[in-house]
């Protein structure tokens, strides 16, 4: 029986400015993603996708609402966690549009860095990293520097980095944008596999038409308001 509960967001709002100049980037957003589930978050530019991602990533402060991660209330009209750096490091995985690997660390250390930052001994952190690189079929490039990796390999290393501390939630920001359809589908397949394997709740922000049909559930966002609908969810069961 898993202790993972995924992520639950209730009435989340984000307002920029005050009074007459106030702009609501997010309005009463509700969302729930179960462990092992991959959901899509789609919407046009300026709809509030990035703002929602930044709130979920504890990078900016929401104005109101509640966020619960694995039954732990992390935000309720204010952050309930004192160390947001540690929250991001231990509980939230990030996968970016561009891999943004650290150029002076090889693939293994790029992945292992997060564990090392969390206090895991170097050897143990590297063993975990290698295990993930193997799972993502990029173990043969474990000691390559990022500049020597192809775009697809870099993205897989980036996914491994997001998973290394076994976070309950992973936020993926346009992870397939720079990839062709074959590689994009491969990345989505990997995210689905990893979500199941590590019981992570994965939220994929995208407007990549190629991958939208792969989601079982989709959150549409427009003018800061979300609504949920069922996706086609084909291809990965």
């Amino acid at each position, binding site marked *: 029986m898993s202790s993972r509960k995924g992520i639950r967001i209730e009435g989340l709002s984000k307002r920029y400015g005050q009074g007459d100049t106030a702009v609501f980037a997010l309005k009463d957003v509700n969302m729930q993603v179960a462990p092992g589930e991959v959901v899509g978050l789609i919407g046009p530019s300026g709809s509030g996708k*990035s703002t929602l*991602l*930044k709130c979920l*990533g504890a*990078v*900016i402060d929401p104005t109101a609402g509640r966020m619960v991660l694995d039954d732990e209330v992390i935000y309720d009209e204010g952050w309930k966690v004192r160390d947001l*750096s*540690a*929250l*991001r*490091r*231990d509980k939230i995985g*990030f996968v*970016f*549009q561009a891999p*943004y690997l*650290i*150029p*002076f*660390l090889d693939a293994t*250390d790029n992945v292992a*860095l*997060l564990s*090392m*930052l*969390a206090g895991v001994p*170097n050897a143990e952190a590297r063993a975990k990293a290698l295990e993930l690189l193997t799972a993502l079929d990029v173990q043969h490039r474990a000691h390559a*520097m990022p500049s020597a990796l192809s775009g697809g390999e870099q993205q897989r290393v980036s996914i491994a*980095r997001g998973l290394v501390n076994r976070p309950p939630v992973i936020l993926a*920001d346009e992870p397939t944008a720079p990839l062709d359809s074959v590689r994009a589908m491969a990345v989505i397949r990997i995210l689905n596999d990893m979500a199941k394997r590590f019981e992570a709740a994965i939220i994929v922000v995208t407007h990549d038409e190629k991958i939208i049909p792969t989601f079982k559930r989709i959150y549409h966002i427009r003018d800061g308001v979300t609504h949920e609908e069922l996706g086609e969810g084909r291809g990965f069961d």
Partner: protein
Amino acid sequence: MISLAGRDILHSWGKFVFTGIGLGLLIGVTLVMAGVYRGMVDDGKALLDNSGADLWVVQKDTLGPYAEPSSLNDDAYRAILSMPGVAQAANVTYLNMQVRKGDRDVRTMVVGIAPGSLGVTPGWPPYLVAGRQITRAHYEAVADIASGFKLGDRLAIRRNHYTVVGLTRRMVSSSGDPMVFIPLKDAQEAQFLKDNDAIWQSRRRSEANPAFNRPAVPGLLDAVIASQSTNAFVNGVLVTLKPGHAPEEVAESIRRWRRLTVYTRVQMEDILISKLIATSARQIGMFLAILAVVSATIVAFIIYSLTMDKIREIAVLKLIGTRNRTIAGMIMQQALALGVIGFVVGKITATFSAPIFPKYVLLTPMDSIVGFFAVLVICVLASLVAIRMALKVDPAEAIG
């Protein structure tokens, strides 16, 4: 935890090494500047050590013989010899001048030493690296090896020629000019020797002066001319003390009874260091301050540029949970690494270039240690600008 700074340095080692070399050359110049000052102080101390004196007796109310002109009658030493506590007293002259050898000349300090013997008479060069001491009353010289003279060389001082019979080492004036020792009588003559035309003009003026050329006093004019063409003055008297006598006590006695100015070793060191080379020391101090500011600016600029190049990586590091102190530590470690590379290059540069400088450059271990820590402090301070900028980076920048 791996060293992020170390990995970054290894990854872009060329940038660090070449920047470190540039910084190192600047640090090398700084160390040499400090060495020049130390060399000047050491030259001053060497001058005092080599004179072999415990006391310097000079013209009343002057800072002579090194810092100011001083003139004493050359028989003053006899009265000093009779003072209690005085073991030896010897006349000495010092004259900074160009000494010619063939078609070249060398800036030297010509020292006139009184007849006597080594170890007894103060003022003699205490040791030789080649040849022998002066044994003849005239026209022999002992030269410092830094002058470039060799044994048997013939050198010209005014109209007289001298043969180099001995060579010595580290016998220099307070300004670093090599010394040439010659007999006292020759040095006295050299100080006041005029050309033939000037001597003739002087004699003519004396003959025309009715006070000297008195028909009723035969021999007066000859006596006046004879006194005008000889020099009965020296620049100082070097005194050694008998065991058990305090320098200040004997000095006070000479001051009181002979109405001359007397300096002890401590006082003479003070004159050389805090008066004679004080302006040069301040000049060097200014250069050191400017070089420190330039070094700090360069390190700050380099570290700032290196940090600017990594803004995106820093945003990613912060987003994935790297603490501010880890990022600050990375930047500071890089600045310190740059400082260490720079110091090593600078120390090597200073060590190998010091002998090439025309003036004595004394690199002391203490200066190197102080310099090393100063470089580290400068690097830490210089990294603060970049650290401040890195800490301001918003992790949200990584999300876009």
